[in-house]
């Protein structure tokens, strides 16, 4: 379901991140994996930033993780968020290891309800016909 008049910044996929955004569009979280390190990494590049090895593949992530940290945004620094403050920004550490910058949804933007290390899972918001944004909600 595309929303008319989406006013926030849209991601512009790069050649190396297209697989990630394609995955999101299908409501699946695909992230790159280094065959040498046997570890996931993020953000997408054609090589692994831990070993500079170029032998990589894409794997589907579980979509589960924990809130590594968060902040509650009380100011709309951009007109797109004018009607939504306060809202929660977070770094979610995936079960697979990498961290994603995201928003927590489905939870009160209140430190009584949000805390570090709380378990969360991915959910996808279809913000245009072509773009779906992964966000996270409490499990």
């Amino acid at each position: 379901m595309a929303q008319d008049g989406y006013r926030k910044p849209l991601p512009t996929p790069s050649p190396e991140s297209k697989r990630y955004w394609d995955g999101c569009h299908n409501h699946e979280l695909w992230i790159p994996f280094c065959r040498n390190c046997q570890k996931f990494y993020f953000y997408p590049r054609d090589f692994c930033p831990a070993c500079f090895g170029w032998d990589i593949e894409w794997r589907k992530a579980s979509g589960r993780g924990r809130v590594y940290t968060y902040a509650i945004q009380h100011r709309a620094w951009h007109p797109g968020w004018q009607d939504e403050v306060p809202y929660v920004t977070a770094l979610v550490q995936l079960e697979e290891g990498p961290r994603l910058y995201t928003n927590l949804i489905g939870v009160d933007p209140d430190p009584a309800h949000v805390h570090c290390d709380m378990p969360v899972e991915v959910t996808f918001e279809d913000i245009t016909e072509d773009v779906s944004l992964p966000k996270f909600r409490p499990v």
Partner: protein
Amino acid sequence: MTPTDRDKAALYKRVAIVGADESDEIGIVPQKSTLQLHAEAARNALEDAGIALSEVDGIFSAGSAGWSPTLQIAEYLGIQPKYTDSTSVGGSSFVIDVEHAAAAIATGLIDVALITHGESGASGGRRGGSARPALDVQHPSAQFEMPYHVGGAPTHYAMACMRHMYQYGTTHEQLAEIAVATRKWAMLNPKAMMRDPITIDDVLSSRWIAYPFHLLDCCLVTDAGGAVVVVSAERAKDCKKPPVWVLGSGEATTHQTITNMPDLTTTPAAISGPRAFAMAGVRHEDIDVVEVYDSFTYTALVTLEALGFCKPGEGGAFVSGQRTAPGGDFPLNTNGGGLSYTHPGMYGMFLLIEATRQLRNECGDRQVPNAKLACVNGTGGTLSSTGTLILGAD
């Protein structure tokens, strides 16, 4: 990181800061362009040193002057330097520039380095356009962060602070101690913008900007220029004022985007700090005055930990009881800091100016008695980069 003998020998006392000053006006200065702020500060710092602009053979700057700050500033000042450095790693750049200038001077490439800064953080937005280059939409922060939030420093530093609070139990009250102590220093500095006293309760009752930061946990947004002059030990003998020696320096970067910061509860000062201390051959307890970037109360707190003045997680207890205020036993950010004196967007330059003045005994009511050794630490980006300096007076 274990410092090597080479680190220790590299730049110890090879160069000195011999001139330092702000632009004629700092604070809210809409009537001056950023380049005017650069030029006024350059003139004032060179006068302070007793050195003519024609002697400057190396120019250093960052941000706020287009895609190549040093090209623009050199042209504007009317000089043709044989060495330029536009290192752009955020507000720490100017502190790092001192190490870069020292390296250029120590190898004999130049004799007189001029580092300038001018930024209209408060007034620039109203002019239209931007002093900083636009972001490539495919870059990582544009793709993976900005769809979730646009707003920069307060957001990202708030997330780092939150993890520190969670992991170590650091409290809002402990963070507020820094805001209150820093304001007390500002009250002693005629050039500081915010000079009314505040209490811990004032900080805690100020509005939320980005939880866990209240308004008074956040630095000012001002217009200001500043400049310092760095010269060889030889040239320093013949300046107006006694030299402020660069005894040790260190530089470190660990990431750009907050998402990719390895450990949100420390800073790269944990790398640059030990190197600077080792080069200078001094211990923490030898330091008389400390000037660290306080973009937020948390930035100052975590920097003290990263530099090793206290252990990781102990910063909250360390700053409690107004220990960093005038009269306390740990003089910190004695000009009133980015929190209460000035902060045009990148603040590193003003750490250098204040440390120089303290070591020259020029600070009047806020002078730390008999200050001989200063530790300076600039932090840039999203806790991404640091420059640490140990400065000393004879």
